[in-house]
């Protein structure tokens, strides 16, 4: 049937020159560098703000720190559509669970919900997520749910394409028992270094500090980013 349609005398219509450039047909990805650090009394989370479609920056002021519940946030990396859809679904599930419980949900519960979804649909999804927040039972916690759907608690976690460039820095700089301000500085430094080296990360640095008293959000604009000796 297909062979019959392609008759010998058919004129060759070439649609090879496509008017729409390549990047319009690329999937939107949060190239990304994301990070979260535990401290005594809460967590600090940070992310860059660049979303790319191929080589074009679709959004240079993205907010990759998504609120899941009052004191639980997640950092999103990977496919923008996948992570937004997962975050929306988990926000709904956690909200429902919290109403049933009549209590603030645990960070571990949120992380579990992410893990369930990311593991079950691991073949279809491209999502690397860091879940962090504060709850009454265990205080500040950071859980990482990378691509594939594993879930593990870590004192600090980095993720996204830009994280490869800062493993050495964070491993050498991290100290146990840092204060909130030290954690914020540590995160800002790490993200700046990653954004400097990774093409898919850039824009501004978004920070969030979550503790018992609530959430404090900050933005560090381009010209205020920490500078390092090489430039």
């Amino acid at each position, binding site marked *: 049937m*297909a*062979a019959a349609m*392609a008759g010998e005398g*058919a004129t*060759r*219509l*070439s*649609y*090879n*020159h496509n*008017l*729409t*450039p390549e990047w*319009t047909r690329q*999937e*939107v990805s949060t190239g990304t560098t994301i990070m979260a650090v535990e401290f005594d009394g809460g967590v600090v989370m940070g992310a860059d703000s660049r*979303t790319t*479609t191929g080589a*074009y920056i*679709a*959004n240079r*002021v*993205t907010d990759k720190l998504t609120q899941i519940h009052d004191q639980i946030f997640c950092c999103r990396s990977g*496919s*923008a*559509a*996948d992570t*937004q*859809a997962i975050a*929306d679904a988990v926000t709904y599930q956690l909200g429902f669970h919290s109403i049933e419980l009549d209590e603030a949900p645990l960070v571990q519960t949120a992380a579990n919900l992410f893990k369930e979804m990311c593991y079950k649909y691991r073949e*279809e999804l491209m999502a690397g997520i860091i879940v962090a927040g504060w709850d009454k039972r265990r205080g500040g916690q950071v859980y990482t749910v990378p691509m594939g759907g594993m879930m593990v608690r870590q004192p600090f976690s980095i993720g996204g394409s830009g994280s490869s460039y800062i493993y050495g820095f964070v491993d050498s700089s991290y100290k146990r028992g840092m204060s909130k301000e030290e954690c914020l500085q540590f995160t800002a430094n790490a993200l700046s270094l990653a954004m400097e080296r990774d093409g898919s990360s850039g824009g501004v640095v978004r920070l969030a500090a979550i503790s018992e008293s609530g959430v404090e959000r900050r933005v560090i604009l381009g010209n205020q980013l920490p500078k390092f000796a090489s430039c």
Partner: protein
Amino acid sequence: MASLSVCQPQCGGFSFENSKRNALLEAEFTKLGHSLPAARKTGTTICGVVFKDGVVLGADTRATEGMIVADKNCSKIHYISPNIYCCGAGTAADTEMTTQIISSNLELHALSTGRPSRVATANRMLKQMLFRYQGYIGAALVLGGVDSAGPHLYSIYPHGSTDKLPYVTMGSGSLAAMAVFEDRYKQDMEEGEAKQLVRDAIAAGIFNDLGSGSNIDLCVITKNNIDYIRPHDKANKKGVRSGSYKYKRGTTGVLTKNIIPLDLELVEEVVQTMDTS
């Protein structure tokens, strides 16, 4: 006597088997030296900007089928609800149908809630539908409107990701339009300024991108008023031919004339009345 039952467990979700088959067919076709007809795409420049009292949406009016202009004056700004409009880039059929489906569902939703629809609701419905189809619906949208919470502007990508921003551009001419926005956008612009900015951004797309052309359509949405200006600017008016190229009678001389009448005989006459009831 035993009925043959093809045991296929009922799986939820969509089956994308046909997509694999289509890819195979296309590969075979290309091997024979022919290509499948391309779906009509709106090459397109679309954009939107939030100003002091609302949003301004803009679009060009060219629809392309490969390298040919299929429609010189198509309408790319679609109605979603009285206070919400949506520009569409990508596959023309997909943007048209997607916006119609969501418009219909949103009207039912508004009747159910008893309140005018919110832009965030339209955004949720669109992104959840596009994500469900995993990018196979090629609709890239700029959604804008004014609701009880103020003016809002979203960009929605075919895979289902959305961004909420003060100014957005989409389509093949989006880079040209974004260049204009990045240069001249300011917060809290007046309506006139915003319209001029959107007009210039679309014009940049029209003149610098082959996939966009013809006229500029605008849609200004404010709290109590919609201005659907089509066309706002006829940037590409068809020129008037300066010379007449018709040959005068007598240019070709007639040497001989031979008239042969055809004798036709009426064989059968059948009258069929038209059903005009």
